């Protein structure tokens, strides 16, 4: 389809190689397995494939069609047109990992600026060039702690208010006979201080989320103090958008910051690709997973950038590498870089404030309804839990019948929380949408 060969090209090339047919090039493949049949749909032209894919896409009802209050780790934000305009520069999206710095300065400088944005948002010292997503970045944070303590500390404590997918991913990545994962079974209603009792001399790392999965904001200073006293590390998983207003985790004593960067100009796309954030203190830079870009000069003294500290990485260290990661999320990191650059200091604060204000309006109005109440009295950012008069699953069904995508039914991840709904509100939710939500919720009670 996209190969440009004419018949005469093929003939000349085959003759140069010294074979008679294309098929003869595959004589080394065992005959009985050569050229198997594959049951695939017939080839489509571009026009046909566009029609077919448009048809499939139209079978979805999305947040573009319906007001949505679904968050739980992926958020519907407005992305200015300039972001995608840059992502569509094919000099960016059809390049690969910048192995040859002389002809990759665009990608390299963009990553350097990404690292700078992440450092300045989180307050940490260094950031890598990106990781897959919030879940795998959290898993790498735990893995980093394991590497930093050379596997001598054999325990990680996970907050039950860390995103369930992140905890599941950490379990898959790290849990083994030699490494224990605890804390997940604690009552999620308890604050971070409940984790302190679990800390001991064998604890490599404590992992918390900020704001947590339920939207709550906690000060982790006491927790940090406790884990540091025991010689362990504190890892904090963040939503970077909220750091536009919130104190950075560095001020609570975080040693490693991971996070999900989807909020920074990346489309929902039914779950990916998103952006894993991983940042740490200078002292742990050599245990940081993934690519890192550093500033240097070319031989004429011109400032430029290269991939650096690659002796940590799999292509050099092989089985002694700090992680196996190779391809990361380059283009998603670029999206975040452009988004942050474009919104800048003021724009990011505005988005943060809109989310905060609208969420608080929604929470306050819902809690006035008969049968509904807020689950927690802790401060929250743009997501909160309401206790519902009927199972959240049923509430969501009723909302959908009324053309609204509801919140996250917490029983999907927390058995026993059948009557609790996690509601997210962003700058894209208008007051009318929030009021429509409240109207339907109020009718549920009375109906």
């Amino acid at each position, binding site marked *: 389809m996209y190969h440009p060969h004419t018949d005469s090209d093929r003939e000349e090339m085959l003759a140069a190689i010294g074979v008679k047919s294309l098929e003869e090039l595959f004589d080394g493949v065992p005959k009985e397995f050569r050229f198997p049949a594959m049951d695939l749909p017939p080839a489509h032209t571009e026009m046909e494939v566009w029609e077919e894919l448009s048809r499939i896409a139209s079978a979805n009802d999305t947040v573009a069609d319906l007001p949505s209050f679904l968050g739980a780790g992926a958020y519907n934000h407005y992305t200015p047109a300039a972001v995608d305009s840059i992502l569509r520069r094919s000099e960016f999206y059809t390049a690969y990992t910048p192995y040859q710095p002389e002809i990759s300065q665009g990608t390299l400088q963009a990553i350097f600026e990404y690292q700078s944005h992440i450092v300045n948002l989180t307050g940490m010292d260094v950031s890598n060039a990106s990781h897959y997503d919030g879940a795998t970045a959290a898993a790498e944070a735990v893995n980093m702690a394991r590497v930093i303590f050379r596997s001598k500390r054999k325990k990680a404590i996970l907050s039950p208010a860390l995103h369930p997918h992140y905890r599941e991913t950490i379990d898959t990545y790290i849990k083994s006979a030699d490494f224990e994962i605890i804390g997940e079974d604690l009552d999620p209603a308890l604050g971070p201080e409940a984790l302190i009792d679990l800390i001991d001399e064998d604890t490599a790392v404590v992992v918390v989320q900020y704001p947590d999965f339920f939207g709550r904001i906690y000060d982790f200073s006491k927790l940090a103090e406790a884990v540091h006293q025991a010689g362990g590390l504190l890892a904090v998983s963040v939503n970077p958008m909220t750091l536009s207003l919130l104190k950075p985790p560095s001020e609570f004593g975080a040693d490693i910051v991971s996070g999900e960067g989807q909020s920074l100009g990346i489309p929902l*796309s039914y779950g990916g690709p998103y952006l894993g954030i991983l940042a740490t203190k200078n002292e742990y830079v050599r245990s940081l997973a993934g690519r890192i870009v550093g500033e240097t000069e070319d031989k004429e003294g011109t400032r430029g950038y290269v991939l650096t500290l690659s002796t940590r990485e799999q292509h050099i260290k092989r089985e002694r590498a700090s992680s196996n990661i190779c391809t990361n999320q380059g283009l998603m990191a670029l999206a975040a870089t452009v988004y942050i650059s474009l919104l800048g200091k003021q724009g990011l604060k505005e988005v943060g404030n809109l989310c905060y204000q609208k969420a608080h309006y929604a929470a306050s109005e819902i809690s006035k309804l008969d049968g509904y109440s807020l689950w927690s009295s802790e401060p929250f950012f743009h997501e909160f839990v309401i206790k519902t008069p009927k199972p959240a699953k049923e509430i969501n069904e009723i909302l959908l019948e009324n053309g609204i995508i509801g919140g996250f039914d917490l029983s999907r991840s927390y058995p026993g929380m059948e009557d609790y709904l996690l509601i997210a509100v962003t700058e894209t939710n208008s007051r009318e949408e929030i009021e429509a939500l409240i109207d339907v919720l109020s009718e549920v009670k009375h109906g």
Partner: protein
Amino acid sequence: MVEKVIYDKSSEGRRGVQFPQPDVPLVEFPAAFTRRDLPLPEVNELEVIRHFTRLSQLNHSIDTGFYPLGSCTMKYNPKINEETARLAGFAKAHPLQPEETVQGSLMLMYHLQDFLAEIGGFAGVTLQPAAGAQGELTGVMIIQKFHYKQGQTQRNKILIPDSAHGTNPATSAMSGLKVVEIPSDERGNVDLEALKAECDDTLAGFMLTNPNTLGLFEEHVREVIEVVHAAGGLVYGDGANMNALLGIARPGDLGFDILHYNLHKTFTTPHGGGGPGSGPVGVAEHLVDYLPGPVVAVIEEGNGEDEPPLYGLVTPKHSIGRMKSFHGHFAMHVRAFTYILMHGEEGLRDVSKHAVLNANYLMVKLKDTYRLPYDRSCMHEFVLEGRWPEVPDVHALDIAKRLMDFGMHPPTNYFPLIVREALMIEPTETETKEVLDQFVDAMLQIAKEAHESPEILKDAPHTTPFKRMDEVKAAKSLVLCCGLPENIGA
């Protein structure tokens, strides 16, 4: 040519984009959590656009020139992929929406699982892994869990050829397995005797890239797989090189138990300057229950055109667990689905035929000038030595840098490790004969220069906006980020 960093363009009070005023009553932000300062740049939209547009122009890319980076399959990424992936029905779907509202996404994923299973000869596929290396990790964890379930907990050794990608041993080590390297023989195959010697009851599995990183089809592939199976091990296939095998041979038919696909190599999802990738994993029947969850399944059978089946997310019985948030890089799934649908069976077979044709053509044209250590018909790529005994100061790196002066991206160099001064060349099927001939001319001229005026190579590149970079300085000084000018030194 130097483009200032965006922080150096900041001016206090300058705006890029504005958002509406809040339309709800305002409340105070809690003082205890308020950040003091947000040290980010303040720039205008045009400045941002110019900045990143100029940066983009400093990149070599597939759309600007030949990119024969071996093992990476830098082929043309069709523009239609970018359009289908951005359809609002896909791009605006939240991953946790009720399944009945996202039947389009689920159907697409279900069929893509099927297509990939059919192309690889497998019984089941997960689309969850984020990239090839995560696909490997998925595969190795499946191997471990399978043995564990069989009560074979002593199986903790994984065998990896010396020609393998670095991710193979790194992945195995991450999973706590003991890595044993297997040498290659003089024809570039796995050394069978060395393999047999390691096949005991501690064997968990063998990771085989086929065609291997030399671009050679493993001549004893069946025997290698049988030896491993006979010892109770499983065979993992690194599918980085699937661009050679579409409709040519199915790894599942050859006996591989597991394989990861790189959608960003074989199935034209863009490489993005270093990701996002997508690394689905296919498995044979006996491993389907171990796939990471969730996968897409038919929950209720349909009934003809009017009543399509109901698709949903399910977690396999013995699943190794979750590899990442949500369901994988869905926007990449859309692109790969688009690509497969445009090709069909014969179209895909043609892809591999022409990828192999282009590689063999280049190999034949270059092998009299550059030493070809394993001289036999190649698949989609081949590896030359970038050195000549008579000019010992010239290295593969010099050849690579000099190629930039011809407007071409260098081949992968210094990999695989078993070839001295390796130049690993993968032209892909989307290049014309004219481009290949230009590459040959450039390589022949460089060989001549290496002998007659090697300083041209040592000083290369000459015509690029940046000259050779000082990597030692970068590692020593470790400047890894910047801030606003007034904050420097603060």
